């Protein structure tokens, strides 16, 4: 059994006096595509931010690839972060940099790759997300919604991550484009062997991509397992969320 990619143990998150997570635990193994479900305000994005180390839980530990995120060793910390990529909900592309420079940015920050290498990698990533090399010259403001997400995905993949975190990957895309984007992520996942954790509200995205589902309710993970198993769980949130579509997804 290899080391789990993500390991959350006894997480407590407190905002003011309110508990968002209470004694929450979750273990995600290599190659799993986990959809994180939960009602509005149940702390899904907060949990994602804790996995990224952007937010520190009040109690409990977050381990990525077996390394605790509160590990004081800076080098170890940095190496762990280089193994994960994040696709933010609104893309978070650097608006002052062109598409090419956006994707090249994390590679240049390594300070040990030469320009030819970087340029080839950027073009490779652009091809991976099915964009033309000529799109590299565009500025983020000139991109359409779908292209914006693709560029953001290409940047998230720039450092060859093993773990990809997606926050609402298909929010703001029309059904057709969102299906394309889901197919694209799915194909990349199979090819690169990525582990994916995603927050989504969209049933289509979940059905098309996730192998596992984790349900966040009552401040903890009430169900985690393969998609078809979780859907049969008898809990008001699960039955409410999947509702009549339960059949369709199976």
């Amino acid at each position, binding site marked *: 059994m290899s080391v789990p990619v993500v390991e959350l143990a006894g997480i407590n998150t407190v905002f003011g006096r309110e508990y968002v997570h209470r004694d929450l635990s979750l273990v995600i193994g290599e190659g799993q595509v986990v959809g994180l479900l939960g009602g509005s305000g149940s702390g899904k994005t907060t949990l994602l931010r804790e996995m990224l180390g952007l937010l520190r839980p009040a109690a409990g530990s977050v381990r990525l690839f077996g390394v605790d995120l509160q590990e004081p060793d800076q080098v170890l910390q940095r190496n762990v972060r280089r193994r994960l990529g994040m696709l933010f909900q609104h893309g978070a592309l650097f*608006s002052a940099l062109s598409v090419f420079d956006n994707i090249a940015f994390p590679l240049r920050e390594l300070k*040990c790759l030469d320009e030819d*290498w970087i340029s080839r990698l950027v073009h*490779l990533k652009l091809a*991976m997300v099915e964009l033309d*090399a000529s799109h590299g010259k565009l500025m*983020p403001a000139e991109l359409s919604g779908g292209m914006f997400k693709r560029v953001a995905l290409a940047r998230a993949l720039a*450092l*060859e991550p093993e773990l990809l975190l997606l926050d609402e990957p298909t929010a703001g895309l029309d059904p057709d484009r969102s299906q394309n984007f889901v197919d694209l992520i799915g194909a990349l996942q199979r090819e690169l062997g990525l582990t994916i954790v995603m927050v989504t509200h969209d049933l289509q995205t979940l059905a098309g991509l996730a192998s596992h589902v984790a349900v966040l309710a009552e401040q903890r993970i009430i169900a985690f397992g393969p998609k078809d198993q979780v859907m049969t769980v008898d809990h008001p949130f699960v039955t409410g969320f999947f509702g009549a579509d339960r059949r369709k997804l199976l």
Partner: protein
Amino acid sequence: MSSIPSLQVESGKVVLAGQWTLAAMLPRLTDLQLALKDAASVPNRIWDLTALARLDSAAAVLLWRSWGNCWPEGLVISDLHRQVLERVADLPREMPPPPMRPFRVPEFLGGLLLKALSNLHGLIALFGQLLLDMAHLLRSPKEMPWKEFTANLYKSGAQAMPVTALVGFLIGVTISYLSALQLKNFGADLFIINILGISIIRELGPVLVAVLVAGRSGSAMTAQIGVMRVTEEIDALSTMGISRSLRVVLPKILGLTAAMPLIVLWASGVALFGGMLAAMLQLDLSLIYFLDNLPRAVPVANLLIGLGKGLVFGFVIALIACYFGLRVKPNTESLSANTTSAVVTAITTVILVDALFAVFTRHVGVPQL
């Protein structure tokens, strides 16, 4: 299974094993590059890549480059990893280099001139729009955005009082102190009133306040309109049928134009007070005497010129700030560049206009002895 990327040459065969990923390669990148170069320099070698645990695209690019951008003769590799290499092989050989234009001085200067002309054109267009809006307001006074106007008056006027007072007071004290040192040498103590009165009321008050206000309110206006552009709030206003110039630009310009003379009056007053205090301590000139002689030494025309300057400066600063705010493109770089341009242009223009004032009012308000 070792996770470290390794390369071994065994009897004419190159064996790659381990994790060939960016993260794993980074600590020993130079060694690996050298080893690869060495291994590839001997032709007709068999490359055995079957023992690879992982091969990511960064490593694939590295391999492809050391093979001289073509497939080696004898390559043993799993299908999965061959796919990764094929992606790299499919890339166009020559990347189009980014177009670089050589730097030429005439071109650069011409570009600057054209930019200045286009800015001037834009400013005149905005001014024209403003006049049209005013004409429209005269016909239908109900549409006057009073709330925004008073809010701007408060923000750029009332809230600027403490800082202008502080700076004015200190400048007043400094000028009075330095002048007093010189005047004492000539026994011309009484002229401190003329020096302070004319310089502060006519020149320093308006210019000082203009510089402060350009940095304080001008930059705020540019940034605010700029962010409204970035977040498409300006477009939202237009879709509701609300004129952006009438609702956003006009109240700002009118507000600052109305507020500036008032701040100039306030700051000049405080500066004079500071000067009076310093003169009292340095030259034993009583406050009463100073105030009695001030109107005689400084004709009232100077005050009117000072206030007039404040009015014009306020208008210029707000017009320039709004113009650059509307020019912001939806990215962070453009926002900062335009805010900088707004403040720099506003201060430069204020000083230019001040020089014009000095030339055209040279016969007014100067006491003849």
